């Protein structure tokens, strides 16, 4: 059995177990390790990707669920400069420390900003509630996405 879908704009046809985790396909055969595994059970959000533009946890998505759909990872979101302003702000405001959670935050935040380019703190909190960060206390992330001054 094989599953066909689009990853970062490229069509892929995957043979094998349709219940394989999307996360493992990305990190392994597709060579896209920007998507991280933090818990493997849908709690931490480090493996967040977009499925038809909606943030999902790729550790909980079996390949069969992707059939005919479009997956976008952190590599694609950050590839062509379209997210540069947001990324620069994340770094400048102290929204990045160890970076292990960061790709997941970037994906969730990007999805939020597509819908709502000027979110307030409450809106950011709601949109990022599924992404855990252990370093920043979230303040740097909130400041970056709400356009507030750092510190």
């Amino acid at each position, binding site marked *: 059995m094989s599953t066909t879908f689009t990853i970062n704009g490229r069509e892929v046809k995957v043979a094998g177990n349709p219940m394989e985790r999307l996360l493992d396909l990305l990190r392994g055969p597709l060579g*896209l390790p920007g998507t991280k595994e933090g818990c493997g059970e849908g709690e931490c959000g480090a493996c967040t990707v977009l499925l038809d533009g909606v943030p999902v946890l790729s550790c909980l998505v079996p390949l069969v669920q992707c059939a005919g759909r479009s997956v976008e990872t952190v590599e694609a979101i950050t590839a062509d400069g379209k997210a540069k302003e947001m990324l620069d702000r994340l770094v400048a*405001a102290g929204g990045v*420390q160890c970076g292990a959670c960061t790709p997941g935050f970037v994906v969730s935040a990007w999805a939020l900003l597509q819908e709502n380019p000027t979110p307030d703190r409450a809106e950011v909190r709601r949109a990022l*509630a599924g992404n855990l960060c*252990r370093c920043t*206390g*979230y*303040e*740097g992330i909130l400041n970056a996405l709400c356009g507030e001054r750092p*510190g």
Partner: protein
Amino acid sequence: MFQTAAPMTKSGIGDSPPRPDGAAKVSGAARYADDISLPGMWFGATLRSPHPHARIRSLRWHSERAPEGVVQVTAADLPGPNGVQLLDDSWPILADGVVRHVAEPVALVAAPTRIAAQEALAAFEVEYEPLPAILSIEEALSLPPLYELAMESGQPGDLDAAFARADRVIEGEVRTGLQEHIYIECQGMIAWMEEGTLHALGSMQCPYYVHKALTHAFDLADERVRVRASVVGGGFGGKEDFPSALSIHAALLARACGKPVKMIYDRHEDIIGTSKRHPAIVRHRSGVDRDGHLLALDIEILMDGGAYTTLSPVVLSRALLHSFGPYRCGAVRVRGKVVRTHTTPNSAFRGFGAPQVELAIERQMDRIGRALGLDPYEIRDRNVVEAGDRLPTGQVLDASTSARACLEEVERRTGFRARWRAIEAARAALPEGQDGAPRPGIGLALYFHGAGFTGNGERRMKSPVTARLLEDGRIEIATAMTDMGQGCAIVFPQMAAAAAGVGLEDLAFAEPDTGDVPDSGPTVASRTTMIVGGVIVRAVTEIRDRVRAAARPQECFRETARRLRAERPVEVTLHHEPPEWQTFDESTYRGAAYPTYAWGADVAEVEVDPDTLAVRPVRVTAVCEIGRAIHPVLCAGQIQGGTLQAVGWALLEEIKMKDGHYLNDRMATYIIPTIEDSPRIDVHLLESGWEGGPFGAKGVGELPMDGGAPAILQAIENATGIVPTAVPATPERLLEWSRLEGGRS
């Protein structure tokens, strides 16, 4: 004397340039241990004990049940001593004959794929004979402890005399539980042999700890082991000692199969198999005069060390030295024990013994204040230490001592006293549980943290740092410090650039690689900026002077440097030299245990649901005096992140145990704060400038972990009248305390 937040300066100190690893981290290009793949690499897996304490009657490998070619390693196959070399080597690499905690490694396998390695574990057959297990501090007290320490100020008899003078004697106890680090990147290591050299590459705070453990376990000369840190996805102390064990495991398997072997823990394995913050019971007996001045403090600290020693002796030492808090007291006695239980060994976690004891002294100050009718500000104001005061060790506090400044600044910013009193009065006037509206509460905590290694640690470590010219004329700084998120990869170049009078573009930061950098010590103990940074500044200054001396007219620094380097290598290696006055007697606990201290005061605001007793942390205002902020954004980031870990510890985080097994052993059940649970954290930096630190800087990383929890607990008490005596202060515990005699203030 104090100013808030440094202005931008030409030197770059106090500026917040973007971190050099930022772009790779936001784009997903940064390569962590699990993102690295080597040709022909295999994967390792670990067979673990299902019992807290058992004799291994037999351990058999059924090769016919395993995929072909798979290799296995047990204690019988070790090439050297069965011990992970840390303070000593009593922590077994693999259990030999006896297991002493659930999840203790018993055997290892390696296979060409991760799944095959996991499946191959089923080829082991182990017969265990369960033995009685000691699972709590109380049960362990009748047995010899892992470690014991005591200190007493003044002369024998002083304490009794001080208690005899006291108008009131007040007693209290605080309990804390197991806190898990939850670095987002789990433990990971790759090991391989190459041309007779053993290589390890992975997630770690201390490359030379790993190096020492590998040379010890494999009986190899120093130059035949090379250790490199990959990008580190968070540490918080959890990657101080454990990577030493994991590197040996991966190396044993690499040796057995002749291929590179990668070992990556999944989250469940990481939680059950690696260290936590020590659970503690801290008891205070305090003698005070009628005005609330501390006359006598008698403190007992009990910590659960788990099955093996790890770093517990130094955790206990730091606990003793922070147990009396930032307060003046005539006579102090502290006695501490780390007990041995049949649980996963506990070890380093941000704060390193200080958070438990500072929570206890802060709760005790609140208790004393209540007993004497003094508000939390007043009781602290009457006892706070100032420059020139002596700590119970005899250390005279230096001019940068800022506890009072922090206290006054946090009061000025929050109006704590008036708000605390208003809430107390409103609570007294409001009959219980009538309106159902969330109850506001506000709490204050004062705290301090000794920066750098305890006692003579820095004198022993010496911390060599190398500065050298690269062929392109840049200055490279070579240290063993890893950037696990805290930002030394930008803070070091900032300090070096300022010292050399050059730009950041003229600096390079060498990757932590034992084949290339000197052993400037572990990335721990809030020592990186203050201690190692100080040596960097001296070494780079010497390079600058050599370059300047050789400069020709009209030549810029970089040109001179390039020309010099083309002639010959230019390299300076200097060591950390503690000031002569900083001596500490480890047998009597007299002297300067730390060269200086960072100071902080937190005000926490909460809302408590009167029906469910659920606590919502609303805001924490943290005022911290850290000497000088080299990079204010990263500095604030340390305080914000550490504060949230403290809030998590105060309200949510605890591993529960049953029969020696962790009950909440995954992220679905071990809960850390999400962005929606988190309070607003306002950080205000005070910079007194400490003359012993580079550009005045002190250590900052651990400080915030000491303050958040006591402030939250006092705020809950202010909101509800219930007296919290443990963390986490869950609704269940609050209900229980509310029913205790004396459980309400």
